[in-house]
Each structure stands twice: as structure tokens, then as C-alpha cells.
């Protein structure tokens, strides 16, 4: 029998997670949890999209919703949750993502002898891999999704064309195996290739898939026949890949086809028509061209919540304006005038805006056509989810449908409606609790319950909100520490912003009077790169590459040809202008 190496691995992780899990009560650093019973008093409950009950009390017991109503009996061991006038929604369901699956390390691939016939794992053909063996409840991505309101996720292994099978997990911090709701629920297929080995392109992936599909069916049927009566039949070879594919060929398991762009959606629909498997379209970003076809064949759809960036041109202008110094201001005005005179660029921008609009309106369009869709979260950042949902709502999606796409629809698509998706007695106690209606601009999530376990979110410090942009956080005086073998160097990095340009100076503690001004300063989101030239007998260029996170940063410096060293530091205060 084939032993999955990951099973061994996940056992180890299991042991580790027990010893470190704070909520399990095993950790002697914090007091033991008294009970698994909670009482939510006087809240607004949204049992399912479209209805709202006020003055509700909810009792959670042993991981389930045990009571709900205006008058409920409060159990003696209930812990009271301060939920007065808060909004209680069903915990959101992430229908498809890689939540809890670590990104593989970038290991150097061994050179394949014959690129035309690589081993299956190199080719990306690993349908036997199960997401249930890879999921780690303590992975940061789990906490990120949970803090965005998600209590359940169907997780896919990472990989190439056939990365493996999906499993449904609760997004709690419990042991990996305990969080498993359903394993091997569906197969994944995507047009992702390993470069340089067969199949290296979408056309070869599709050809290979047809081949595997037909052979999986042949192999599976053969095995069944052999079991009944082996006489005259050759003994079946055990082929784990084909046997894992076999349920798809007899419609016992749906295939999740990752299809972002219009052409991918077309490929997915064509392949389904050709081979006849059950399919779920996932990560759909541009699927509106095939709306009719999707509707007609009732194919479940998961829309990607990653949306194109709208042009921030206008807001940027406003934001930058006050900072302008006189001389540069006139220059910039000239530039603006020049740009406005370019009808060609205007035409280009108009088309682009129209294009963006189509992406944003897709969800609303699907709703109008009555296509039940959920969302998938392979590419969207958890922190953007609510923002993007609001964008979709501004562009024609109703709030009720949006909520359904977060709860009831994915529950149906995943076949777990009896367990989750609504706030009802007897369902798993997965809840999202907000201070204002969830889609309200100023709403924040106060609590998330997963499997009856409470996760509380204190309001984030709002200090960063005043800053105009992400990169605004970089302005300031920062300490630095560079570990160079044999010594540690410390000093200050001062980042200023004037007239929209960043100025960086570096002062080393060993020579506090000498300031090095940096050149080639480039800021990209939370990342800044620059270099200084310092005298070490001869001029040597030092390249800095720093990534900022709130009040600290990490990164690397590379010093001429001497190599690259880690650097880190913390915020020390405003820069002195």
C-alpha cells in the first residue's frame, strides 16, 4: 500500500500544534477554558440572506448552535459574550482556496533526463495528493481568513495541472485532523505547467488530460471487472494517479476547473462537453461571455474575489496636491495639461475603465441571470475581501446575494448545507459577529466563532489610517541592525517625503556625524529599495531592499561583491525635517 509521506509529516505537526495551541487549555501560560458554552445576548441575527431578526439570544454548546430566540434558557456554564446590538451572521464559507496549505519551498528541480517523459510528480500530475494531508490549522493563512469572517474552507493542494484533491476544513485552531469536515470532496484541474517538461503548455495539458481521463476510466472499469471475475483478464496494475481520477470519470467526484479568463472558461466548458464530467468553475474573473452556457448547463461557479485595480489617478492628484512646492507644482500642472491634450490616451483610458467596469459588474450580472455562485479565494488577499465585495455591490450585486455567495451558496456547492451556511439551531456554531451590518462601510468584525470556539478581534489601532497610502508608513526615523559575520552594525535610516519624492539618508552609529544620502530610491507598496555609495578604501555601492510591516521592517543589503546580509529595524519616530 502506498504510504503518503505527508501523513507522517502531518502527525508530527499535530503533536506540535497540541503543545502550542493556546485555546486548548493545555498551555500552562494561560488559564484553562472553563466551558464550550456561550451566550450571545440581544443581538441582531441574520439567519440567512434576506432576513433579520432583532433582540435575539443565541446559545452555543459543544460546537453547535443549541438555542436561538428572543427568550432562551441560559445554561449555568455559559460564558456571556458582549454581543448587545451586534449583528450575527453565519460563518462565511470559502468554497475554494489554498488556505492552510503552505507554499512549497523553491527547491531546485533535478534535471529531468527526458523532458518529454518526466515522472508524474514533475509533470504536475498528482491527483492522488489530498488536501487533508497538507492542511495546517496554525498556518497564518487560516488566521487571516478567519479574521475576515471565514469559518470553513475547501482547500486545494498547491501544484500544477492536477494538484490533488480538495478537502473541507473548519478554520479553527484545533488539531489539523479535528478541523477536517470532509476529505477528498473534489479534484482540481488547472492549466498550469512545469516549464521545460511535458506537458509544458495548455495544449499539451489538455491532451494529457484526455489521455489520463480515458485511461482512468479504462483502468477503473478493468479493476471492477477483475474483482467480479478475474478469469482471462490481465491483473490490473495499481496506478494511484489513474485510480484517483477514476471517480471523476464516473461522476462520483466533481472536477474544479480553474478558469480565470474568458478563454480558460471556454476551454473548461468545451472539455466538459467533450468528456462529460461534473464540473465546478473556479477562480472565474472573466466569465460573463459564457453566462448563458453556464446557466443552461447549471454549472456551479465560483467567482474570484480578486478584482482589477481601478485607476487611482484622481485620488492621487488630490492627495499629492498639498505637498507640492511652488516650483514643482507649476511643472506638474503643465504635465497634467499635456496629458489631457492626448485624445489617444483618453481613448485608451476610457476603454480600460469600461473593461474594469465589466469585471466589477460580473457578479451582479450573474445574479440577475439567477446563476448561483460562490466565491473562490486563491488569489485575493483576505484583507481585501470586504472591500472588494463592496465594490461588487456598488456595481450591481445585491447585498443579499453577496451574503448568499459567502454562506448558503458555497454550502450548497460543497454539499454541507445541513451543517453550515445559516444561523440555525443544530448547525455548527460558525458565526461572524459585526458591530454594524457587514456590508456597511464602517463595519468591523468583533467576533468569529468557528466550531463553537470564540475568536475575538479587538479594534485595530487606527494610527495608520491618517496616512495617505501604504508607503506613507515608511516615512520616519528607523533603527537598523545588520548582522555581518563577526560583527553587528547599527544605525539609523531616515526616510522623508517631500514633493512626492522620497529622500533617504543613512547614518551608522560608528560615525554619527556622517550622513550618506541614498540614490535610486524606489518605493513599491510596502517595499523600498535604494542604494548608497560608501567609502571603504574604494567606493562601494550598498543596495538596500526593505519590506515594511507596521512598526518594523526586514530586508537585505548587498554590499558590492561581498555578498548579501539581513537587515532589520524598528520605527523610532518622525523624521526631523
Amino acid at each position, binding site marked *: 500500500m502506498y504510504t503518503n509521506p505527508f501523513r507522517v509529516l502531518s502527525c508530527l505537526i499535530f503533536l506540535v500544534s497540541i503543545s502550542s495551541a493556546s485555546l486548548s487549555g493545555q498551555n500552562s501560560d494561560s488559564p484553562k477554558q472553563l466551558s464550550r458554552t456561550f451566550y450571545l445576548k440581544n443581538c441582531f441575527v441574520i439567519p440567512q440572506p434576506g432576513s433579520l431578526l432583532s433582540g435575539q439570544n443565541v446559545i452555543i454548546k459543544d460546537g453547535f448552535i443549541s438555542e436561538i430566540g428572543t427568550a432562551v434558557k441560559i445554561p449555568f456554564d455559559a460564558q456571556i459574550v458582549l454581543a448587545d446590538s451586534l449583528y450575527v451572521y453565519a460563518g462565511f464559507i470559502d468554497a475554494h482556496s489554498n488556505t492552510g496549505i503552505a507554499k512549497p519551498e523553491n527547491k531546485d528541480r533535478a534535471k529531468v533526463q527526458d523532458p*518529454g517523459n518526466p515522472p508524474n510528480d514533475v509533470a504536475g500530475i498528482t491527483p492522488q495528493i489530498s488536501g487533508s494531508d497538507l492542511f495546517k490549522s496554525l498556518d497564518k493563512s487560516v488566521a487571516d481568513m478567519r479574521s475576515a469572517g471565514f469559518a470553513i474552507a475547501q482547500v486545494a493542494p498547491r501544484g500544477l495541472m492536477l494538484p490533488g484533491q480538495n478537502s473541507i476544513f473548519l478554520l479553527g485552531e484545533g488539531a489539523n485532523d479535528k478541523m477536517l469536515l470532509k476529505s477528498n470532496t473534489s479534484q482540481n484541474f488547472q492549466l498550469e505547467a512545469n516549464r*521545460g517538461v511535458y506537458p*509544458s503548455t495548455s*495544449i499539451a495539458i489538455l491532451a494529457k488530460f484526455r489521455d489520463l481521463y480515458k485511461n482512468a476510466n*479504462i483502468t477503473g472499469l478493468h479493476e471492477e471487472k477483475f474483482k467480479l471475475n478475474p478469469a482471462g483478464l490481465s491483473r490490473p496494475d495499481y496506478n494511484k494517479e489513474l485510480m484517483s481520477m477514476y471517480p471523476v470519470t464516473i461522476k462520483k467526484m466533481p472536477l474544479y476547473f480553474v478558469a480565470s479568463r474568458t478563454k480558460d472558461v471556454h476551454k473548461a466548458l468545451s472539455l466538459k462537453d467533450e468528456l462529460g464530467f461534473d464540473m465546478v468553475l473556479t477562480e472565474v474573473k472573466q466569465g460573463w461571455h459564457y453566462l448563458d452556457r453556464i446557466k443552461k448547463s447549471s454549472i456551479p461557479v465560483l467567482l474570484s474575489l480578486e478584482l482589477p485595480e481601478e485607476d487611482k489617478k484622481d485620488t492621487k492628484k488630490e492627495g499629492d496636491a498639498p505637498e507640492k512646492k511652488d516650483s514643482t507644482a507649476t511643472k506638474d500642472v503643465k504635465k497634467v495639461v499635456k496629458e489631457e491634450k492626448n485624445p489617444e490616451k483618453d481613448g*485608451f483610458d476610457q476603454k480600460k475603465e*469600461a473593461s474594469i467596469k465589466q469585471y466589477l459588474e460580473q457578479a451582479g*450580472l450573474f445574479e440577475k441571470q439567477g446563476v448561483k455562485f460562490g466565491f473562490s479565494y486563491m488569489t485575493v488577499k483576505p484583507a481585501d475581501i470586504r472591500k472588494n465585495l463592496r465594490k461588487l455591490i456598488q456595481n450591481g450585486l445585491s447585498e443579499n446575494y453577496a451574503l448568499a455567495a459567502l454562506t448558503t451558496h458555497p454550502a450548497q456547492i460543497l454539499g454541507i448545507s445541513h451543517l453550515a451556511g445559516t444561523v440555525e439551531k443544530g448547525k455548527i456554531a460558525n458565526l461572524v459577529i459585526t458591530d454594524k451590518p457587514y456590508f456597511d462601510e464602517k463595519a468591523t468584525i468583533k467576533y468569529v466563532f468557528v466550531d463553537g470556539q470564540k475568536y475575538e478581534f479587538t479594534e485595530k489601532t487606527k494610527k495608520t489610517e491618517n496616512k495617505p497610502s501604504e508607503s506613507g508608513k515608511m516615512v520616519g526615523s528607523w533603527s537598523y541592525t545588520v548582522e555581518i559575520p563577526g560583527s553587528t552594525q547599527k544605525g539609523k535610516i531616515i526616510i522623508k517625503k517631500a514633493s512626492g519624492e522620497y529622500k533617504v539618508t543613512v547614518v551608522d552609529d560608528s560615525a554619527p556625524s556622517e550622513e550618506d544620502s541614498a540614490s535610486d530610491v524606489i518605493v513599491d507598496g510596502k517595499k523600498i529599495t535604494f542604494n548608497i555609495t560608501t567609502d571603504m578604501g574604494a567606493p562601494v555601492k550598498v543596495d538596500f531592499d526593505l519590506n515594511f510591516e507596521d512598526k518594523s521592517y526586514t530586508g537585505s543589503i548587498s554590499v558590492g561583491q561581498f555578498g548579501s546580509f539581513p537587515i532589520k529595524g524598528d520605527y523610532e519616530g518622525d523624521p526631523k525635517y
Partner: protein
Amino acid sequence: MNRLTIVLAVIMPVLLNAQNVLIKNGTVLTITKGVKENSDILVTNGKIARIDKNISAPNGTSIIDATGMFVMPGIIDAHSHIALDVVNEATNPVTAEVNVGDALDPLDVSIYRALAGGVTATHAMHGSANAVGGQCETIKLRYGTVNPDELRMEGAPRTIKFALGENPIRVHGEGNKIMPNTRMGVEQVFRNAFSEAQLYMKDWDDYKKGLRKSSPEYNLRNETMADILKGNIIIHCHSYRADEILMLMRVLKDYNINRICFQHVNEGFKVAPELAAFGAGASVFADWWAYKFEVYYSTAYNAAILTRNGVVTSINSDSEELIRHLYHEAAKTQRYGDLTDDEALALITINPAKQLGIDKRVGSLEVGKDADIAIFKGHPLSVYAVPQKTLVDGQVRFDIEKDPDDTRIDINPNEKYSTFYETERNYENSGCLRGISEMLMQESYAKFMRFKYSQNHTH
């Protein structure tokens, strides 16, 4: 799908939707039935219904005045890589199972640019990295759709790409250190692939006849090779040198295969009598040569020599640049070899149609054929000719009078401003080695490639 219609209407506000058209009073170059001065062509439901003088327009017919213009059949490019997202699966010397029809790209703006050169159909081909490449797709340039299926030319015969000489040798022999590393090896790759397919067919025949109980393994590669053996697929073979052309004809003879068109075939002129005797087609460049060693001994008179020796010959582009002026490429055979007007025009119309097995449908202006029509100001063989209108199935897909500035259908919502390409896109985006250019960006090759992008050829 109202939204889509609206969007397309914004993009192509101009194009006539009617498939009932009367083209009035042009000089009609029928190709197969001579030149008809001051004649009309009536198109009904996308087909040519009548060619005559003074046809009166039935109700609901839109009229195109072609007075003083030349009307010819839509140009057919027997070798193209436009409208494709993938060209090469370059990992194996035999990849008969892959099909570029799975990677059609109706959004490629090159389609519009080809229409603006009078082209209405192309042979969208797999590249030349492998001895047996992938299957190809004959498409019509119905620009304006987002649905890849709408490009397919319904009922066109299946075709497959083969390749000889330097490209498969460079990719597999030099690149991956496997056979073929020589033209000897290339031959054996073919023989082996065909012989494997014969064995495969036998296994399945036995199974179907009940001679064996267990099902054989399914193999799409062998299935495809078997279809070639059965005569269901036309081979289009990238080739240059005379010796390798003879080699493949011998191999095909041994396996009883007779449907083949040689592509590029720069040294076809040396074996023109043999090509004619075999019944092989030849689809050539007008004048490309010297971009690699195997095309050093070429001549621009190739098409003329082949034509004069009775080989069905076409002129192709293999390039998103050349495809825009195939009428001019065809005219070069008048400078290099004195072909007549009809002979020169046949090179880009009826002859490629024959090579693709679609000559009953397109390639000439005849009653009953598809209304794929190109209208020129100036004779199309004149270097000063300017294409005016191009119709596919009677539908105007290019009209110089109503030609919008920006013809993209699909706009990348994340593109900042339009991207300027320092080099023409040919380098990577068209041509036989597309998709493996990066792979070939190896030390010894980098220099060549760097300059290829200011050039037209990567074939």
C-alpha cells in the same frame, strides 16, 4: 448577452452585419474563371449567389459600390501562427496528440491586421520544434467574437505539423541531448512513430474483435498517428533542404500516406519534379532566405520554378507582419519568375485552399462558394494596392472607410498605458519557434535571437 453586444458594438461600430450583400461594378478577379470587368457579385446568406453584370439588389441587401476597384477572393494563408496562444509544445520530438485548436485566441489584434490585408482564412499551425508537431486548425478571420469556436472553419479537414532539419535537431538533439540530432535521426523518429501507431491499431482491433479481453491502454498520440495512416489528416511539413524533402516522401510512400504539403520548402525548386510526381503541395516564402544555414541556398524564384513544374504552390506568411501584405508577396513572383496575374494570385487563393482541402468552399469567386472577398483599390498585384474592404461569409470585417483607431477586443484591466514594443512582435509572437524562444536564449543563441527581434524570421 446584451452587454457583450453593446461592448462589441462600441468597438466595431461600423461593420455591416448583413450577410446579404451586393458588390457592384467591380473588376472581378475570379482566379478560376478569368477576369470579369464591371461585374457584380450577389451574396446571399454568406454565400456567393450570382456573379453577373447589372444584378439588381433584392430587398434587405446592402450594397457595396466597387466601381474602379478590384474584387478578389479572400486571401488564404497556408502557414500562420496568429490567433494562437500556444504554438510549440517543444518538450518531445513527437507530440501528435496536442492540438493548437485548443489554444485559439480570437482576441489577437493580429487577426484584424490580417483582415486589413485582405486575408480571410489562415492555417493556424503548431510550431516546428518537433519532428511530429501538433495538430493545426484552419480558421476564418471572424474578428469581433470572443468565442474561439467561432473562428474554426467548420468542416475543414484535419491537419498536422511535421518538421525537418535544423529546428527539431536544435531543440531536441542540441537542446535536450536526445534523438534527433541529425537528419538521419529525424527520419527514424517518423518511422518509429508510424510503426508504433500500427501496433497500437492492431491491439485495439484485436480487442474489438474479442481476440483479447483486457482493454489496451488508450494513447492519444498513437490515435492521432493512426488517423494520419488512415488518410484522415493532411500533413504540413516544415522543411527546407532538398534531401530531407525526398526523405519524407520516401517514408510516406512506405506507409502509404499521400496527403502532404511541404511548408517553406526553400529548396523545393531543386526537387520540383519529384514533388509534382508525388502530388505534394509546396507552400513557400516569397523571398526569405539566409536567416539560417539551411536556407542559404535559396532563391526567390522558388515559387515560379515550382509552379512551372506543376507543383500546387502557395505563398504563405508564417508572420504577423507578412500576413498583412500577402498580395504583395505573391506579386514578387512576377519580378522573380514572370508568373501571370492568375498564376500569382492563385498562390494566395485557390492553391492554399487546395493544400488545406477547402478549395470546394473558398479560394475563388464562384457561385456557391463562401463569400470571403477582398476589395482593393488598385490591382492587388500592384505594390500600391490598398485593401478597402474584407468580407468573411458575406460579413464586412474590415472597412477602410470605417476603420476604428483601437481595434482591441479584450482590454487588460491592469495595463497602465499601452505598451510599446521596441521590436516588432514577430520575434516571439509569430513564427515557427514561438514559445521556445526563451528556451533557446542560451549562450550561443542569445546573440542571434537578440537580432531576430528586429527581423522577421524565426522559422
